[in-house]
């Protein structure tokens, strides 16, 4: 484990003493490696290591922990602080309905997560409306319709149009007529470098004024996490992040990268394929997992 590796670096250091610069630098090499292996972005790691170095050098070695454990604690606490955020609840709009828009790369888990959130809100006593605004992927409408049926929740869809903006607008009108207080819009997966599709997202945003735009990202995403999250945030503006497939064994460094580059809170994690497998995000659990 990282703790063991760091213990061997600090073997010469006993009980009372200060964490010396050269020992800390040796430890930082190991920590840097651990973070890169965990898929934390290269530049984010660089910045983070610099931040840790400031915190660790010259610190007094505590009686209760080995020096290695102490450095791990400094790193773990710093990770928690960076990952954590205060605003992790979905914000409701002052005037209903609250519109929530799900965006992200292809296959990240948007459609499944849209349904998971709908179930979550239904359990809280709300009346969500699901909106099938992915008109491009084969059977995307059927996928959301099937999930809506499982939840006994209405799904707004249209097989007539190819315009997701029109579908979203119509869905909002329908939600107001039917007294639905939450509108969850599932959009097609897209690349942040596809200009037309990013314009399409902007147009949906303009027309329905979402209270929350959530970036749905795969926990196993590698170095590209920073590029794509920054691009989505710069072009569309995101309010929060949902990290999916956390039931796998990916270390999840993408969480730190995306949080760091966008400054936006991670609100939920997906923990399975079934519709009830979504949980609020706990920074300390993810921090421990990133460190490995």
């Amino acid at each position, binding site marked *: 484990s990282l703790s063991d590796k760091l213990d061997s670096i600090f073997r010469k250091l006993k009980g009372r003493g200060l964490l010396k610069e050269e020992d800390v630098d040796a430890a930082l090499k190991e920590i840097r490696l651990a973070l890169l292996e965990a898929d934390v972005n290269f530049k984010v790691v660089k910045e983070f290591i610099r931040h840790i170095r400031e915190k660790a050098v010259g610190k007094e070695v505590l009686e209760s922990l080995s020096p290695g454990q102490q450095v791990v604690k400094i790193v773990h606490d710093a990770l928690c602080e960076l990952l954590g955020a205060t605003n992790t609840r979905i914000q409701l709009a002052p005037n209903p309905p609250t519109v929530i828009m799900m965006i992200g790369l292809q296959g990240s888990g948007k459609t499944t997560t849209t349904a998971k959130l709908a179930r979550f809100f239904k359990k809280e006593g709300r009346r969500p409306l699901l909106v099938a605004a992915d008109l491009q992927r084969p059977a995307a409408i059927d996928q959301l*319709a099937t999930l809506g049926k499982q939840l006994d929740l209405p799904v707004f869809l249209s097989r007539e149009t190819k315009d997701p903006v029109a579908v979203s607008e119509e869905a909002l009108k329908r939600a107001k007529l039917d007294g639905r207080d939450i509108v969850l819009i599932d959009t097609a997966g897209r690349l942040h470098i596809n200009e037309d599709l990013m314009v399409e997202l902007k147009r949906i945003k303009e027309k329905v004024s979402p209270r929350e735009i959530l970036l749905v990202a795969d926990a196993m*995403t590698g170095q590209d996490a920073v590029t794509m999250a920054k691009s989505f945030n710069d072009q569309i503006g995101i309010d929060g992040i949902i990290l999916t497939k956390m039931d796998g064994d990916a270390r999840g460094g993408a969480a730190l990268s995306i949080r760091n580059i966008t400054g936006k809170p991670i609100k939920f994690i997906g923990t399975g*394929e079934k519709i009830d497998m979504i949980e609020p995000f706990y920074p300390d659990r993810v921090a421990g997992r990133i460190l490995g």
Partner: protein
Amino acid sequence: VLLNRKIDDSTLDEIEEILITSDVGAESATEIADLLRSKVRAGEIRSSDDVTTCLKGEMTALLGRSQPLVLFGERPFVILTVGVNGVGKTTTIGKLASRFIAEGNSVIIAAADTFRAAAIEQLEIWARRTGADLVKHQSGSDPAAVAFDAVEAAKSRGTDVVIIDTAGRLHTKSPLMEELKKINRVIKKALPDAPHEILLVLDATTGQNALRQVRIFNEAVGITGIALTKLDGTAKGGIIFAIKKEVGIPVRLIGIGEGVDDLKDFSTEDFVTALFE
């Protein structure tokens, strides 16, 4: 990005950064950088142009020659498609079916993802688009039975290729990996030489976890080829170096978009060039 100038530590650091941000992995990136460093010290590399040439040469040698997907042996040729959730299995099958049909083959697609919402409907659309036949059962039925029926149908109709779609599954879920082993065994009951290709689909945006996926799927059913999807994005897919080094499984195909024609044979040369763009 590496303009012709004298080699120094900062050049080699830059190279390590390019490699790491391409998902090559910290360990492999350091190995490659160290190799270059020793060549610089030995005087084999003088300018940074040399470095680029040497680097591309090293990486090309590491990946080896391309090994495309070729139909061989008795028909039907059976391809079992596997991988974790959302990587592009179903879409890749649609693209493959289209390619085989364009080459004059008859194709049966087996809808053996009987679990996920609208998985069968999604594949029905691809079958219709490409002219492939579809073998499907009810949603929720036994995936092994679908695979078996598809191979049996191919045998009786004289179909050239069977491509079997399976549900996305995380390699960490042992009941799902057991189900995959069962699908594989049942295919063999229908045709002892099948599957002729067990194709693992990997997403180019995936980081170091791709290596774990390869290891565990390989242990479970034996992977004979990899399809690397979503290379039309900004992710570089550098993890394939570590994969090649560890298990030697060839990347056969790359996905470069969501359309039916967005499938190319893997080319080592093109991949290495794209890595440094």
